[in-house]
């Protein structure tokens, strides 16, 4: 195990966490890779915001690297490929250069849906859940679709300018609610309950909550607490966005 190799291995761990991996899975993968390269012992402590890896080679030399992780999201395709890469490394022990090449290939744009599909998916998600929660009026569904697309667009934009995630969710919820209330004011729709719920469904940190509980029971208490607090703050930000829009427009009554 050399410093160069450790750098690439740590990079894999960081990217797995950024793609939304479970912490124990990341720690497990890195330990396996360490053993495969003949390390005497591998210690890793990972959370969703920080990572420390320490490897002791057969000569007794210890290499340690630490990384700060600033943003996490959910990207299943990337996660799948990173997992496959980790398994491949454990099985064949390639050199650092080859791992780096494969990492670049995984990061390529071809593995991601284009932005317009993402934005449209947000719209369809909001519209589908608008129907799901009891709306049957065509105009309501259409407004929900627009609100969802606006949210998707804002999420993409805020990601580009790396706005704080909690603040970003607040703005998305705020803008979506404003649009819905505007539709209510001009008489396009009779009620905005289901439209707002549809929008909430495409913003809500459901993943964070369930992952947090799982982490807690697996024993990653630290990550569980981080994730739980983030999920609660995101939910509050979404709620506050709606409240701010209602207060600004002077209530939701027509």
């Amino acid at each position: 195990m050399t410093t160069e190799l450790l750098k690439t291995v740590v990079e894999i761990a960081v990217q797995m966490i950024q793609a939304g991996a479970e912490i124990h899975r990341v720690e497990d993968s890195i330990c396996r890779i360490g053993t495969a390269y003949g390390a005497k012992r591998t210690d890793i402590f990972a959370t969703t915001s920080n990572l420390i890896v320490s490897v002791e080679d057969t000569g007794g030399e210890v290499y340690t690297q630490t990384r700060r992780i600033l943003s996490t999201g959910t990207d299943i395709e990337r996660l799948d490929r990173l997992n496959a890469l980790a398994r491949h490394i454990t099985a064949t022990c390639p050199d650092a250069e080859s791992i780096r090449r494969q990492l670049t290939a995984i990061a390529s744009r071809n593995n991601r849906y284009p932005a317009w599909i993402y934005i449209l998916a947000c719209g369809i998600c909001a519209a589908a859940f608008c129907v799901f929660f009891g709306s049957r009026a065509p105009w309501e569904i259409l407004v929900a679709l627009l609100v969802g697309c606006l949210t998707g667009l804002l999420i993409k934009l805020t990601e580009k300018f790396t706005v704080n995630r909690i603040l970003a969710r607040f703005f998305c919820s705020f803008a979506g609610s404003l649009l819905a209330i505007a539709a209510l004011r001009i008489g396009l729709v009779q009620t905005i309950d289901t439209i707002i719920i549809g929008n909430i469904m495409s913003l809500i940190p459901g993943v964070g909550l369930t992952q947090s509980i799982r982490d807690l029971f697996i024993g990653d208490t630290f990550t569980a607490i981080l994730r739980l607090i983030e999920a609660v703050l995101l939910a509050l930000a979404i709620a506050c966005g709606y409240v701010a829009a209602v207060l600004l427009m002077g209530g939701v009554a027509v």
Partner: protein
Amino acid sequence: MMDAIIQVSAALIGTLAFGLIFNIRGKKLLVGALGGMLAWALFLLLGLWIPSEVARYFLVSVAIAGYAEIFARVLKTPTTTFVMVSLISLIPGSGLYYTVASALNGDLPQFLEKALHTLALAAALSLGIVVVSALVKHATAYRNKRKEQ
């Protein structure tokens, strides 16, 4: 009945869209979306015998977590892939909305009732996932141990 069909189809489309948001591709996207449809169909079906929403949330969560464990092995992907998308329709987003809405209206009793109900649903959902993943984990550990002996 018509309402149930509309709800289940909406769950399918909503889950599919969520799969796109999470960048899930190919067969996995299809399996995840079908799981979402199954989840809500099961929830409605169980409603015939079990009136409690919280209890049904727990049972559906267990069933879908099992579904996720099976297809994760078939398609060689982490279990989370399906757990995350297939249970989307059960995430109490409407609970959050009505909690906030009653707070805005100054209706304190309703606010408390909605908030507690939303928390109970979220807890039931998470607990179901945890029960299955703990069972699977221990079962795998037990099998590996027996193999070694």
